[in-house]
């Protein structure tokens, strides 16, 4: 029997679909209707216009820049040098963060870093939330900070600053590796043992800089590992952890622990 109530409930299915209360099967059935009949599509569009404004009350949250990098990578889009999200100022001058990274005691390193970075920074007003920078303290076996790596996700680059100049055997140089969770190390590049190195990050690399990746340094021949994988001893390696919120910015820091240092990466 087709009562007025049934009719009403049937037309309300489109409203229920937009509200989001239908189970998976019913949802799929309505989605199919929308694709195939213009009445359903029109009814759903009307309900969207009525109900979607509720989302105006949800506070916006800026996504981490690597999400955009992943989208570009997934779609194979040509990539401009930087992500379209406005850059945020402040982190490079964020002393609590540097202190936490282990550079606080090394005024020379901070001064060096600020000198290196400042001329390139163009401070802009920033939206709230989001992840613009990642950083890693790369420690040696003895717990002394060897390098600090800071990744500027907007400008797609990483700056690696030595805190303690490394003594390496003749003909050897440090190579930096990115290790996505559960994957093989990817070479980021050779880094200097006694001065800052700036490395441009391509979109594929940027897309892998999530909070589950780690950084490590191994000792390789001057030109880099001949195999594409680490061949020498690993000086430091570690997993990513959340940084103390040194300012109002949400900052994630990769903490390179020395627990596994000295092991081979592969």
């Amino acid at each position, binding site marked *: 029997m087709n009562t007025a109530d049934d009719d*009403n*409930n049937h037309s*309300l299915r489109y*409203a*229920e679909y*937009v*509200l*989001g*209360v*239908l*189970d*998976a099967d019913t*949802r799929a059935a309505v989605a199919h209707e929308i694709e195939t009949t213009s009445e359903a599509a029109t009814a759903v*569009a009307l309900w*969207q*216009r*009525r*109900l*979607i*404004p*509720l*989302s*105006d*009350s*949800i*506070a*916006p*949250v*800026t*996504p*981490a820049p690597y*999400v*955009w990098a*992943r*989208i570009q990578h*997934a*779609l194979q*889009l*040509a990539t*401009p040098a930087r992500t*379209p*999200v*406005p850059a945020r100022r402040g982190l490079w001058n964020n002393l609590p963060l540097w202190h936490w990274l282990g550079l606080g005691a090394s005024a020379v390193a901070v001064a060096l870093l600020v000198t290196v970075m400042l001329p390139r920074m163009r401070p802009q007003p920033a*939206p709230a*939330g*989001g992840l613009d920078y990642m950083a890693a303290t790369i420690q040696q076996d003895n717990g002394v900070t060897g390098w600090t790596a800071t990744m500027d996700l907007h400008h797609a680059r990483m700056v690696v600053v030595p805190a303690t100049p490394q003594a390496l055997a003749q003909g050897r140089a440090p190579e930096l590796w990115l290790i996505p969770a559960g994957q093989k190390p990817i070479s980021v590049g050779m880094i200097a043992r006694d001065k800052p190195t700036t490395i441009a990050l391509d979109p594929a690399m940027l897309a892998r800089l999530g909070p589950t990746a780690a950084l490590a340094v191994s000792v390789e021949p001057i030109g880099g590992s001949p195999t594409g994988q680490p061949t020498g001893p690993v000086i430091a390696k570690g997993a990513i952890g959340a940084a103390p919120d040194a300012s109002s910015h949400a900052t994630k820091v990769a903490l390179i622990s020395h627990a596994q240092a000295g092991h081979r990466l592969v």
Partner: protein
Amino acid sequence: MSVTSPAEREELNRLLIETGRSDQKAFAELYRRTSSKLFGVCLRMLRDRGEAEEVLQETYTTVWRRAGSFDAAKASAITWLVTLSRNKAIDRLRQHREELLDDPERMHETVDEQPTPAADAESSQEYRRLEQCMQELEPQQRSSVREAFFTGATYNELATRSKVPLGTMKSWIRRSLMQLRTCLDQ
């Protein structure tokens, strides 16, 4: 980010149409202007940053591929985008439904009855009108509609959370939807 002014809406419509013509610059600008709104929507529904990031990525890859089918006469760009992200988030929730039902934290989540960073002078006319109509609903029914919209829960889940029979929840929501339609279409 405010996407509520008519001029801003027009601009987003234009950017989405340009995106439909494979204009990468327009797509980047569209992302810049809308991603934090959509990410807020995803995060609110999924309650997990990693999942919300994945859904946001899926949303924008779909935007790039399907922007050509956007019709500004039928919906504004921002409605089209929010709908797309909500649908992806709801699909994700349905996939994980079993796990979520097992998670007591999620079961007893409540939604703030307080709306609104937007309920001020900046909020859109559509939003203010909808809020007025929402205020005419019975409090319990209003809160069920909100919870449904913001969490993407099914009738079953809503009934369990509110500890009422499924039939009661269905009639609450349906009555609310009819009431909203009448109020909004006046």
